[in-house]
């Protein structure tokens, strides 16, 4: 199994990478490549040029700033799992990172790459929605900020335009008194999830999100309201699942119900 031929470009900094991505419609950014190289090998994706973004300083590492942590898009899952970067989430992001695929994949796969691919089963999408993250997107023409819940618009589909690149992910630091719950269901350790639910209960409000739907991760407004008010989470979950994953079969809907209830239980424990 070999990908079709492409050119591998090692850009000289962010400006050079953006200019290469902007100038060529058939150029794609590559970070860890843990999904993209599979898709290229299976010839489900094609590119004339792959632009390596893993050595661009602006995309590497994480820093604390103004009540938030800014993660460079090329931060690997393993760096987050191991606590080698600051954690704004009181342990939530470390737990999530440690359950993505397998260690060999986590050593190379990146948070920005996972978001940009927008696999429906991706781990970070619902987590970053529940945490209220924003993504800093750059192109040769400038930069813009997109809220996590507005970023994906379908399976493998996002608001990224050709030539745009995720530079960083800003995650607000959870205040004292914030609690979170997270549940992921997969057939075996490291397999693609069949449902992911995340609930973050701040002193000033609750956000809940569901991933591994037929499309993209979304907020669960009824579940958030039920957790905040001590209402019937199961009834709220059924209502939200019908909206979040309308094509779910009975099995998938029960997976969603189970992860939502487990995440809500962990928040309320």
């Amino acid at each position, binding site marked *: 199994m070999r990908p079709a031929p492409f050119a591998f470009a090692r850009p000289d900094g962010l400006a050079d990478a953006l200019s290469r991505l902007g100038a060529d419609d058939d150029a794609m950014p590559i970070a860890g490549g*843990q999904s993209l190289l599979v898709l290229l*090998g299976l010839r489900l994706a094609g590119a004339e040029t792959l632009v390596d973004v893993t050595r661009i300083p602006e995309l590497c590492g994480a820093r604390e700033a103004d009540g938030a942590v800014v993660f460079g898009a090329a931060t690997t899952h393993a760096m987050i799992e191991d606590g080698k970067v600051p954690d704004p989430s009181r342990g939530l992001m470390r737990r999530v990172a440690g359950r993505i*695929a397998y*260690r060999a994949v986590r050593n190379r796969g990146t948070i920005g790459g996972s978001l940009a691919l927008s696999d429906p089963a991706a781990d970070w999408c619902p987590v970053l929605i529940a945490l209220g993250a924003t993504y800093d997107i750059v192109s040769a023409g400038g930069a813009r900020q997109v809220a996590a819940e507005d970023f994906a618009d379908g399976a493998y589909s996002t608001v990224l335009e050709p030539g745009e690149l995720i530079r960083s992910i800003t995650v607000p630091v959870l205040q004292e008194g914030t609690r979170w719950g997270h549940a992921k269901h997969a057939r075996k*350790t490291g397999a693609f999830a069949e449902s992911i639910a995340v609930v973050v209960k701040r002193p000033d409000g609750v956000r809940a999100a569901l991933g591994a739907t037929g499309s993209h991760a979304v907020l669960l407004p009824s579940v958030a309201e039920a957790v905040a008010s001590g209402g019937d989470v199961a009834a709220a979950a059924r209502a939200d699942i019908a909206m979040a994953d309308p094509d779910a079969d009975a099995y998938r809907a029960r997976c969603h119900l189970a992860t939502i209830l487990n995440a809500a239980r962990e928040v309320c424990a």
Partner: protein
Amino acid sequence: MIDLSFTLNGAPVSQRVEDRTSLADLVREGHGLTGTHVGCEHGACGACTVLVDGEPARSCIVLAAMCEGRAVTTAEGLVDDPVMAELRRQFHDKHALQCGFCTPAMMISARDIIARHGAAAPATIRKELAGQICRCTGYAPIVAAIAAAGAALNPSSDAAAAAPHVAATAAGASDAS
């Protein structure tokens, strides 16, 4: 074609490679290091696992061109490694292989598990090994061999054998505040 300079099992290498060449193909076909086995070729089986800068990576889904300036270590480069020596001893003793196809990568992953978890409990080893597929053994002897090697290399850590898993579960279940 693209220029590539990296370290392979401790020796500096400079060469030109086709841009799409995987690291697995480079070490096997370019350097004759056939301890790196190519099974599924799409990152599912783990048989091609090598170390890049000391960390396990699936060489079938790493491009050779990505390894510019990196240190790549294959099973052949770990012959004199003391952890691998203990793993070889325990894999032999516990009959942790039959056909041997998964074994070099299984041992490279096992070495990483011991590095990160010390004398890991069987449950931790099973979780960490989920990405390494063996079609012969049913995994039980592999888990036993890694547990024995971890214990032999961490003699004073009987408590540690259970603690990492228990601690991780307790931390995960605790509230976030």
